[in-house]
């Protein structure tokens, strides 16, 4: 076990996507105090539905009076704005119950030095987050501590230095560190979601690529809506996106560099290419190519441009998804008559059907942990999002609705985001498309708020990993 007071320095590279200019920012994290792992501290079990969320108090961060103004940032409110983001992240997990600030018993700066544990316990808090911040010389310094109130001790403490405009990401990184400390699992708050923003009537939909932070802020459109765009997906480093576009009425798979805004068609296929995804190493794109009415699965190496045919069957083969080790591919085929899920080796050999339940199955997506496949199931006019083991056993349906599909995994493999559409009336009224998330426990179903209607979400990996 690590013990003692050595300082540990971690450098995290942050990519800034602003103004299409490649700017690299650094966040410096000092591991202030090391923890004694031998002691039994509070722990949150996330492997099952949590009906008794952990009461946690997130104190507003204390703003140092020596702080200077910085363009566009209300320094006075920054401490409570950061704590609000952390609270919102925690509430969204369903695992934590952030307590109301009115009940807080100590001032932020005093609590941050050392909380009066017994007083905080009176308001039924089990964990406390405190912190302070300072903006000086165009730099934002943030420090936070997580306290176990029952054991009356500090669990973790970190300090960050970054550009002040990065303050939202600081709040997400703090949330991730606390989530990791309390659950033993990697967090998923410092992440983004790319999706298709929808507007207009149902039979004349305008669709644009859009990207936002996981909590819905910093929304930005990546295309103008002049052509139909579908199914965007991140590459492993979150700088590239592959998607399908009807640019010039030629439905093809495209590759988009988010930082520079440059895009290109993937490959030189004489027909429709669709359903793209990256390989786990980011070097290949796997997709379907439709020729003479028959869709098969192909890969293209982005460096060598070599195209490989993976399936060769007279049925529809689509929605391919690699296993995280790159050795297998799950996909959708109607070779048995109706849509079912199949798994094969990444060279196309050893094809095995894995779904045999009632109904038809689509959109298999391999979990980043490698243990599960998420899918869409259609049965008796209802749509389900579910998970199963990679051999098709242990099917669990998480949510049922009129129409929903296209699950995408949180980077820690604990949460799925998907889209849901509602029934439309005579002229298309009442129709909506929204993003939702659900834990793989089947609990904690939540709407993800977006500025417009939304579909085809894809979750990034952790940005600061």
């Amino acid at each position, binding site marked *: 076990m690590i013990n003692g007071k050595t300082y540990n320095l971690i450098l995290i590279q942050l990519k800034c996507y602003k103004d299409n200019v490649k700017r690299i920012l650094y966040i410096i994290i000092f591991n202030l105090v090391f923890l004694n792992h031998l002691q039994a501290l509070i722990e949150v079990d996330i492997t099952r539905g949590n009906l008794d969320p952990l009461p946690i108090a997130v104190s507003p961060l204390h703003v140092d009076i020596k702080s200077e103004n910085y363009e566009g940032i209300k320094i006075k409110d920054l401490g409570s704005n950061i704590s609000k983001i952390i609270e919102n992240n925690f509430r969204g997990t369903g695992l934590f119950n952030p307590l109301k600030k009115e009940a807080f018993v100590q001032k932020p700066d005093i609590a941050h030095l050392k909380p009066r544990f017994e007083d905080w316990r009176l308001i039924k808090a089990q964990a406390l987050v405190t912190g302070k911040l300072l903006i000086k010389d165009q730099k934002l310094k943030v420090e936070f501590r997580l306290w176990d109130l029952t054991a009356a001790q500090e669990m973790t403490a970190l300090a960050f230095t970054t550009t002040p405009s990065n303050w939202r990401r600081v709040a997400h990184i703090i949330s991730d560190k606390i989530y990791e400390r309390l659950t033993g699992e990697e967090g998923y708050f410092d992440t983004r979601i790319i999706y298709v923003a929808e507007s207009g009537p149902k039979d004349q939909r305008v669709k644009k690529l859009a990207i936002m932070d996981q909590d819905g802020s910093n929304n930005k459109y990546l295309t103008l809506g002049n052509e139909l765009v579908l199914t965007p997906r991140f590459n492993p480093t979150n700088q590239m996106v592959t998607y*399908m576009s009807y640019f010039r009425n030629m439905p093809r798979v495209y590759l988009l560099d988010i930082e520079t805004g440059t895009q290109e068609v993937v490959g030189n296929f004489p027909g429709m290419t669709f359903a793209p995804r990256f390989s786990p190493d980011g070097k290949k794109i796997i997709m379907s190519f439709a020729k003479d*009415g028959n869709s098969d699965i192909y890969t293209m190496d982005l460096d060598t441009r070599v195209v490989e045919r993976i399936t060769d069957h007279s049925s529809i083969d689509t929605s391919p998804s690699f296993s995280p080790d790159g050795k297998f591919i799950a996909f959708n085929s109607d070779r048995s008559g109706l849509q079912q899920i199949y798994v094969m080796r990444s060279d196309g050999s050893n094809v095995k059907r894995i779904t045999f339940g009632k109904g038809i199955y689509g959109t298999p997506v391999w979990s980043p942990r490698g243990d599960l496949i998420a899918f869409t199931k259609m049965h008796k006019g209802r749509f389900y999002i579910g998970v199963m083991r990679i051999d098709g056993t242990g099917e669990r349906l998480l949510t049922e609705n009129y129409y929903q599909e296209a699950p995408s995994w949180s980077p820690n493999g604990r949460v799925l985001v998907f889209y849901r559409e509602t029934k439309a009336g005579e002229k298309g009224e009442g129709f909506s498309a929204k993003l939702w998330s659900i834990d793989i426990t089947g609990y904690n179903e939540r709407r993800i708020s977006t500025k417009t209607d939304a579909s085809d979400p894809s979750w990034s990996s952790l940005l600061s990993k």
Partner: protein
Amino acid sequence: MTLNKNLKNIFLVVFTTLALSACSTAKKSADIDGDVYTGKETVEYLAAGVPDRVFFATNKSSLTTASRATLRKQATFLRKNKNLNVTIEGHADERGTREYNLALGERRANAARDYLMTYGISGKRISVISYGKEKPVNPKSSPLSWSQNRRSVTVKVN
């Protein structure tokens, strides 16, 4: 007699019920056969008597007898208009996953193209494009509108 009167009432009720149900099935069979749309509500025409579209059953891309008749009319029309090229748009209803529907629309458009080709129309004159479930002709969520949306539409290019 009371008994007779009661019987009469019962017959009346039974008769009306039959008549009503007969009426509703009659309407249904006029527009949908199996679950293939057979009506004319959304249909447009390439020329007088030449419908521009054919309809499909759920998850299917096979052509019905009526679809073949429509496509033969299109073939005759295209033979008469030798300089005309067309695009066949393939569509699916909203009750499937987006990616599968793109493939299904492609398969439907090609089924129509193949049939036109067997009637002597050069493949060079016919391009295909699939829109999957993206461009419904009828936005309502009902079995009737879904059947109208499962279609391939022949569109003049020049």
